[in-house]
């Protein structure tokens, strides 16, 4: 069995998820080769064959160009699996190549079960087990779902690919960094975080009051930030900040994978939610089944009295 791993490179560095993919391929029991559009002077730590295209020439994120380069290598290697990370880079590239390879694609894999793949469904409330029926299967792997035990090591046997110009109908015009001004949640000991379950913007004050009563910082989920109920600097998750306070209080937060990735390393997690099946329960030390609009004021009052 053979797997072609697609490494990731951004702002001049190999991304950590590349190493998770190596571990994933190992768990599948596959021999591996790797493809990457990156920097040849600074290849990933990897013992195996690496097909390297130059990101200085082809750009780090141009989908048309990367599709063409990757397809050429896939045709040459003829793998059983092409493995990408379920990242913005991977979920963009994977369907483009699976279409051409006539490959079934399984997305956001969190586990392998006897030749089948386990994927989250319904915002993480359920799981789905699927089997691909095609000769080649394209897989995107959810970051953080595997316990990485080994430190990355090794020196690849590098083959440079590409060289010719590749036509693209898409022009990359540059990166835009997040504004870093605002709250720095990474230093807070206590974070009280508001999700869409708080109902409306006015209720932010109820959550802020609870944060004040415990002596913590206010944070929020993405929909709360997108709706303009609080600022982006308070967003926790894959497209916000990653935090690990002593106490994280999740108020009306479902616990989507992208939110969990930003807070599951907190030392102690309290969830307050009306839905006992909400996936936040998977990481919560205490799960309070209650309406946050009633529970938060009651808790604040008691803490202030204490």
């Amino acid at each position, binding site marked *: 069995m053979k797997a072609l791993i697609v490494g990731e490179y951004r702002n001049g560095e190999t991304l950590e998820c590349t190493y998770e993919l190596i571990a994933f391929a190992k768990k599948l029991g596959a021999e591996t080769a790797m493809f990457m559009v990156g920097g040849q002077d600074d290849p990933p730590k990897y013992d195996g064959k690496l097909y390297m295209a130059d990101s200085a020439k082809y750009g780090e994120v141009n989908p048309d160009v990367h599709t063409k380069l990757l397809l050429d290598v896939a045709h040459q290697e003829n793998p059983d699996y092409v493995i990408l990370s379920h990242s913005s880079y991977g979920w963009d590239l994977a369907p483009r190549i699976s279409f051409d390879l006539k490959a079934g694609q399984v997305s956001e894999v969190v586990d392998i079960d006897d030749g089948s793949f386990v994927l989250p469904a319904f915002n993480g409330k359920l799981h789905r087990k699927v089997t691909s029926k095609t000769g080649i299967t394209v897989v995107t792997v959810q970051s953080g779902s595997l316990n990485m035990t080994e430190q990355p090591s090794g020196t690849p046997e590098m083959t440079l690919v590409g060289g010719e110009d590749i036509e693209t109908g898409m022009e990359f015009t540059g990166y835009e960094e997040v504004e870093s001004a605002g709250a720095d949640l990474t230093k807070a000991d206590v974070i009280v975080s508001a999700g869409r379950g708080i109902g409306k913007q006015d209720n932010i004050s109820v959550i802020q009051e609870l944060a004040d009563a415990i002596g913590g910082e206010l944070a929020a989920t993405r929909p709360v930030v997108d709706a303009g109920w609080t600022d982006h600097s308070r967003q926790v998750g894959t497209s916000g900040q990653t935090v690990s306070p*002593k106490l994280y209080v999740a108020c009306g937060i479902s616990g989507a994978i992208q939110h969990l990735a930003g807070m599951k390393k907190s030392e102690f997690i309290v969830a307050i939610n009306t839905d006992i*099946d909400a*996936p936040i329960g998977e990481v919560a030390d205490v799960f309070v089944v209650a309406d946050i609009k009633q529970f938060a004021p009651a808790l604040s009052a008691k803490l202030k009295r204490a």
Partner: protein
Amino acid sequence: MEILVCVKQVPDMESKFNIDTSGTWYDETDLAYRMNEYDEFAVEQAVLVKEKLRGDTSVADTSVTVLSIGPERVKDVIKKALSMGCDRGVHIKDEQYQARDPMENASIIASFAKDKGFDLIFTGLQSQDRGSAQTGIIVARVLEMRCVTTVVGFELENDVITAKRELDGGLKAGFRTRTPAVITCQMGLNKPRYPTLPNIIKAKKKELTTIEADTMATAERMVETDALFHPEKKGAGLVLEGEINDQADKLISILREKTGVIK
């Protein structure tokens, strides 16, 4: 300009899900359904483009078609999109919706769209039920259109698209491309409007056509669902139920005991 928006109907994610006897789907009895959250941004963006081009005499009339695949009930989300400002609806009636994989759905959309000359196709980044994030991209591949995914910023000037694609950790990448293109929409792209009562009434008079999925060219199924199940609750914590004041008292004593943050 011709615009297509693809929307999916999904169950309310706060529902209690029970797995049905097939073991690969859930019991649909009494569930509430909604428009897939990501698709609301797609509908809004299509309507924004139409509103911007209205009055621009250099372009022919802009028309927005909204399409959804699924059983009879998915007409509700088509009607919602019509009341948000789409012009006509297409319901692709499909009784195999529980088993379809993204390649099949994309092939159905593409076989509808192929001879209609759409300049822009908007879809959600992914659906909340399956979350594959594949369908829009495959539609673009089949129709040989350009495709920008995970879009959080969109401008159109003549046929030039300036789009912001979200990468990880909040980093964004700017792209310039041209129509015809498929755009997959991420949360926060815009602020989806709520349909007003007059617009809901107006929407009732808009055209809504039904096509049977069986009559359309469809790709072969490549990925099969073996099982749908509740994940095992790993390190499941303590659950506090009951009266609010009791819950609060218990929580405070646990926090005192287990964390150093409350005196």
